[in-house]
């Protein structure tokens, strides 16, 4: 199975003499037209510009162009100004996350370099490869992620004016843009969903009980989230905040800690601490070594509920085996080393037990539901209501690439179907026969979307329909999903 994997980053699966260049980030900038309305002051509009090396006048020119496009298109559609601009070489995406603050991302179209007959390389831009919705979503995610760790643009302005805002943007995006990996963005970026860990009622109740007890004994904890195997089980945060925090945890924080775990380096039975119960708990944020009296108790600050209560919180992520808990405490309280030690001594042993309980229960449930044979089809499911997402297409998320087990062309078809679904409100079903003999089926029922890829070359439409019905009956029999 492993050898059939295809990397979605445009591996050389076409003719050998062709050279592939995946889509790439050309530039990324943030501006506010109100900050330099007069001629000669245009530079003041620019709050952030990547790449920074670009000459000042070109920056001003590019920003001005975007401004003009947005202004111009507004006359045709006042409520929905342009979201993207297609050109031969690249595509620009516009987003206005806060009033008058514009974020622009320019992505170069993928390129195929062919050898012409006379041996000269001929560059061919693939203008239709990129999906607007995917990259618009990526741009929105950029803002959400910034906001999670920095709060709103407006708040930065209030706190320290343009200077502070510029500093924050520079500090955040300088690093964040390196992690974008535009070549492996797909349907899942549109959904920005959350994968939930399937669990029986009793184990779930035990986790509830654990969380309530922890929040009681660590009274400064305001919100808690609980994850197992990188999948969410409980969140005290509102959906939209959890969605972006989940993205951060699963694509950035957890993967960074996987390698030491695999190497077994800090499998941390701390026999050296007398009186401490043996447990596997450790901090993923905050102090690395609790025995070090100089250990720094610095936790990332996050901002949630920015639309109303606007809360700043410290994010404490603590993990034992495959179970991770996020404790969020009010940012005005600075957690001390004593607090961290107390948390470790209370949470560590209980979380260790709970983690092995969950693992055991999960294995039992798996055995009951039967050894799951690799089915003939792969699917992606998403529910807009609770952001639940399930994919058997994606293998695993890593900070660098997202591994998919299907051909990028098929992924693009999924994106196209999704765009069709967005256009109408009603339930729909679309069946596509792909060039590569695969069948692709998209279904939309109320708030749910399901995409199925079938590898049945000789099947006809009716048979495909039957297959999908079967899939729904086995995988989604406990929800109201029209077929």
């Amino acid at each position: 199975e492993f050898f059939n994997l295809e990397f979605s980053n445009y591996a050389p699966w076409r003719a050998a003499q062709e050279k592939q260049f995946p889509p790439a980030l050309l530039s990324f900038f943030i501006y506010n037209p109100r900050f330099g309305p007069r001629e000669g002051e245009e530079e003041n509009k620019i709050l952030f510009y990547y790449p920074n090396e670009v000459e000042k006048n070109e920056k001003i020119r590019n920003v001005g162009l975007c401004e003009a496009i947005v202004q111009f298109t507004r006359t045709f559609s006042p409520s929905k100004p342009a979201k993207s601009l297609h050109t031969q070489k690249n595509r620009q995406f516009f987003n206005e996350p806060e009033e008058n603050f514009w974020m622009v991302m320019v992505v170069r179209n993928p390129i195929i370099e062919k050898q012409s007959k006379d041996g000269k390389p001929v560059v061919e831009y693939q203008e239709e490869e990129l999906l607007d919705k995917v990259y618009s979503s990526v741009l929105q995610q950029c803002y959400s992620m910034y906001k999670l760790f920095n709060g709103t643009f407006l708040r930065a302005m209030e706190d320290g004016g343009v200077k502070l805002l510029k500093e924050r943007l520079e500090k955040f995006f300088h690093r964040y843009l390196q992690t974008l990996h535009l070549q492996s963005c797909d349907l899942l970026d549109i959904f920005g969903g959350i994968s939930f860990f399937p669990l029986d009622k009793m184990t779930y109740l035990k986790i509830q009980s654990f969380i309530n007890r922890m929040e009681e004994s660590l009274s400064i904890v305001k919100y808690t989230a609980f994850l197992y195997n990188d999948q969410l089980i409980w969140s005290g945060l509102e959906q939209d905040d959890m969605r972006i925090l989940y993205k951060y945890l699963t694509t950035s924080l957890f993967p960074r800690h996987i390698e030491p775990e695999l190497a077994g380096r800090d499998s941390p039975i701390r026999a050296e601490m007398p009186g401490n119960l043996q447990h596997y708990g450790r901090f993923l944020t905050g102090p690395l070594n609790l025995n070090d009296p100089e250990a720094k108790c610095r936790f990332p600050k996050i901002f949630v509920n920015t639309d109303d209560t606007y809360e700043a919180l410290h994010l404490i992520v603590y993990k034992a085996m495959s179970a991770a808990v996020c404790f969020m405490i009010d940012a005005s309280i600075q957690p001390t080393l004593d607090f961290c030690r107390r948390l470790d001594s209370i949470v560590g042993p209980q979380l260790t037990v709970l983690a092995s309980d969950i693992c055991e229960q999960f294995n039992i449930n798996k055995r009951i539901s039967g050894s799951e044979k690799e089915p003939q089809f792969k699917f992606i499911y998403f529910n807009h209501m609770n952001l639940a997402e399930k994919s058997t297409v994606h293998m695993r998320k890593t900070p660098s690439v997202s591994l998919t087990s299907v051909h990028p062309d098929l992924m693009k078809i999924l994106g196209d179907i999704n765009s069709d679904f967005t256009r109408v409100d009603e339930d729909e079903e679309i069946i596509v026969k792909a060039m590569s003999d695969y069948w692709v089926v998209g279904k939309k029922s109320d708030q749910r979307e399901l995409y199925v890829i079938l590898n049945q070359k000789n099947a006809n439409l009716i048979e495909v329909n039957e297959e999908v019905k079967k899939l729904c009956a086995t995988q989604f029999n406990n929800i109201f999903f029209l077929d």
Partner: protein
Amino acid sequence: MGEEDYYLELCERPVHFEKANPVNCVFFDEANKQVFAVRSGGATGVVVKGPDDRNPISFRMEDKGEVKCIKFSLENKILAVQRTSKTVDFSNFIPDSSQLEYTQECKTKNANILGFCWTSSTEIVFITDQGIEFYQVLPEKRNLKLLKSQNINVNWYMYCPEGSVILLSTTVLGNVLQPFYFRAGTMSKLPKFEIELPAAPKSTKLSLSERDIAMATIYGQLYVLFLRHHSRTSNSAGAEVVLYHLPREGACKKMHILKLNRTGKFALNVVDNLVVVHHQDTETSVIFDIRLRGEFDGSVTLHHPVLPARSIQPYQIPAAGTREWPCVGGRGSRSRPDIIISASQGYLWNLQVKLQPIVNLLPDKGRLMDFLLQRKECKMVILSVCSQMLTESDRATLPVIATVFDKLNQEYKKYLDAEQSYTMAMEAGQSRSGPLLRRPVRTQAVVDQSDMYTHVLSVFTEKKETPHKFVIAVLMEYIRSLNQFQITVQHYLHELVIRTLVQHSLFSTLHQFLQYHVLSDSKPLACLLLSLESFYPPAHQLSLDMLKRLSTANDEIVEVLLSKHQVLAALRFIQGIGGHDNISARKFLDAAKQTEDHMLFYTIFRFFEQRNQRLRGNPSFTPEHCEEHVAFFKQVFGDQALMRPTTF
């Protein structure tokens, strides 16, 4: 000491009798729990009073000498009076039978009668210094028939009416006890056993006094209680009570040791399965519960007093109105199961345990629950403990609350299981099964969901001052506990959770609970969710999912979809489950018309025409009263658009 601090009290209405004095002798019969006041040997009257019957029996009898012992048989049928050391006199108290006395002499020659015990309404045992004699009394013949006898040297004896067991002290030291068990005309000898004396006796005189032995039924089992006094040679800090378990079959076994941690004179009572030990010097009492966890040393379990020592609540003698401290264990009063007698004052009380004060004396809530669950009158106290631990001022921590819930539900589950196996056995036909099945008794310790809901949870959730986080944590903890014991959660608890969540707009919490099926599916719950849609739109999807899972709510699903104008979806759903032949076309056409979408109306109309054709051989809606819709169809699409009947 405040009134609320005493956990032992005497009953409100004691039995009053004439106090003992030179002309009035007082006797107590533990079998019938009656006090006899015998004036002048009976010549000037005998008054018999029991704790339950408020009508005393009084009669006269001839003064034939000093009365040594006087007792009624069970049901007050025959009176037995011992006046000499060789004989016992009888007189019948059966209506219309001769009241003339008749006499029985003990059979063993040269033996002295130590006493006698009634084991039924007509069976009596004489205990002599040389053995026991078991008789049947024949009142109409006015004589006795010897059923069985046994020769054995007896120092003293003791009778436990609850267990129908007589204990004889034998051997020179007196510490070998021989029990006999009586039932329906038979006498069986149980294995004898030896009481370990505190120190090796120096002399060969009687070393075990009957004052230090008691018998009582505790948790349905018969125990011999031995008060082992503090001995200077042993290391023990004070006296202790040793409990020997005396089973119907098998040997007697030393099981429990109650550590008194004091020395001096003691008296024992057993009340509500608790061993109460009174200490004379300090006029205080302690209680022990052998079901509470003690220290097990491999063979016996050591117990410490459940609570700190307290006096019995001072009582008021009704007539005199003076408050006095009851003195127990003094001269002339012997230990009885739950009775305290003062012959000199002329009172007989039942000793009672007050549960409410104990709530504050036992800070460990888990242990408190263990203790309360074993008591007879516990339910209201338990519920008040639950309410108390949830109030803001007196709030317990969640782990403690969880422990309490678990203990309650364990007891609740035990009862449910017993009830279920009883029902199953009844259905299977109990005639074939061997032992007679008894319906399980629902004791007060069974605190079910409705008790908790009514007395604790619904009140608690309405308190404004309680933070909602805590309210939800408590409700979830209770639901967790019920689930852990595999008890089906009643829907009113789920509704309480939902109401609380909705009240505080915690919709995402609600959503997650439903996602993990913590709140079990039911039609009422699905309807409740539907009603929440205007506050929380996703409730619609949650409700539909729930209806789908119920699989008995297909009509409801169709109604929900139609009300949302999702006519096509409703039709596809009903078609998917194969119910489209039986549905009302009118309902769907109505809904389709309301959407003002003509193409939709056309589709629905056409669908039913085709269905009608298939079912009735004709596309018309004739029996279904859809004239209005047919007219509308014609108006929009014209007459010729109607489907023509196909004829074959």
